[in-house]
């Protein structure tokens, strides 16, 4: 799970988290007591429908200001280490 979530854990952390997460999932097993066969799921509390706004240009973010927040930038683009290559 940690790998999927892009986290790396020490052996001690792995042990502690495993116990804690199992405990939380045990609690979630309470829900097994309910008959949910004919119940529809709720993802969201509001009955939202798509809306369209008028096609008017509003204020936009300043590119330099946004780029200034990035750890590394080159030629007005976000720069990252090689995507392919030897993994550690």
């Amino acid at each position: 799970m940690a790998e999927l979530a892009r986290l790396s854990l020490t052996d001690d952390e792995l042990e502690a988290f495993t116990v804690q997460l199992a405990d939380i999932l045990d609690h979630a097993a309470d829900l097994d007591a309910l008959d949910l066969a004919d119940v529809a799921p709720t993802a969201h509390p509001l009955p939202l429908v798509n809306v369209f706004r008028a096609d008017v240009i509003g204020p936009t973010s300043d590119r330099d200001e946004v780029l200034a927040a990035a750890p590394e930038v080159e030629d007005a683009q976000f720069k990252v280490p090689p995507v392919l290559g030897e993994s550690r």
Partner: protein
Amino acid sequence: MAEAVRSGARSARSVVDEHLDVIAAREPEIHAFNVVLADEARFAADEIDRRVAAGEDPGPLAGVPVALKDNMCTRGIPTTCSSRILEGWIPPYDATVVERLAAAGAVLVGKTNLDEFAMGSSTENSAFGVTRNPLDTTKVPGGSSGGSAAAVAAGFVPLSLGSDTGGSIRQPAALCGVVGVKPTYGAVSRYGLVAFASSLDQIGPFARTVSDAALLLEVISGHDPLDSTSIPAAPADLTSVLDRGVEGMRIGIIEELSGDGLEGIAGDVQARLGEAAAALEAAGATVETTSVPSTVYGLSAYYVLAPAEASSNLARYDGVRFGLRVDAPTSGDMHTATRTAGFGDEVKRRIMLGTYALSAGYYDAYYGKSQKVRTLIVEDFARAYGRYDLLLSPTSPTTAFSIGEKTADPMTMYLTDVCTIPSNLAGHPSMSVPFGVGDDSMPVGVQVLAPAMGEPAMFRAAAVLEAAAPPRAAS
């Protein structure tokens, strides 16, 4: 306070200076703030005074010092979410609530501490240290908006804003003895609020009195085209209905969330709830105990749904566009190294839990099932509100607990949210009103719950409770 500033009887500068003095005296002990903006606040106050002198009206919160939970974006001022992963990040825009506060004449004096990314119930999960309860500094202030609650309780500010995903405004309000409101989902724009669990998050006010909370909620409410979940309706008038009382209202005490139905509700909390019910009855309401059966399953469903949404929302912290980056030879390794160094334990726990609940093979067993339970809760509330105008429960099962008491076992910490979570799952408003103290002399909060858009009735009941609340010993 705002009236005095608007009429010129008091200067905004003197109001702000007075509060900055209180902060200077007690903040080192309490640690409510991640940052105090003293110079900026004095500058803004002087500007308000200039406008008053020029005959302008700076607005309903003229010169009133406010504090913001540090997960709301402020242009040019760091916004950290009390996380290492955002340390040093300076937002290029203001949250809508920040613009509305400024337009109302409020003066921002600081940004408050929170559990990292609002995940927690005690403000002990902050990367920048714990916040202490101003009424007893060995106790937690609650969380996750513990800094905002403590700032109001300590007299640092009369008003502050927090965010509430599963109780993060109401529970700290109860533990610190202040008023805290989670509005109807969609009533307050979340543009510029750093997302935790998007189908549950809502911004709301902390205040010392019910009428102050009503005024602040009026200022921040209303439709915002920048938030797709914002309700396209005019904000409810709250301040003018506060004195209408509860004569003829039908109010139900939720059996499953009170002492008779739920193990873990402390005797003193249950006793105050009973007295609060009696006060509402004395004011002309009909009060009886009622069953809202599925509310008790809210906690289990929430601790699947909220981490699931969080695991997706927090995928954006990848060391590419903002915040921390830990260098590594490849992008994949860089993401992992950055997230491992930048997130604290509770955030990691919830990201992994959410990743698991959404993963192929486990989706139906956890996420799908929890969404169905959410439907049951919505339906049970709908039935209850067919018979009652408002519902009542404790806000927190106990008064403030000691610092360190629950940190070793996440599940015991999560259980403190059992009474507050159902309103988030349903998208309904609810608020905590201080009502007397427990056996340890620490404040008890009573929770008033209302159906969607039911804020006016909710505030009327809150005003009755406030007037009837037993006086708290001087603190």
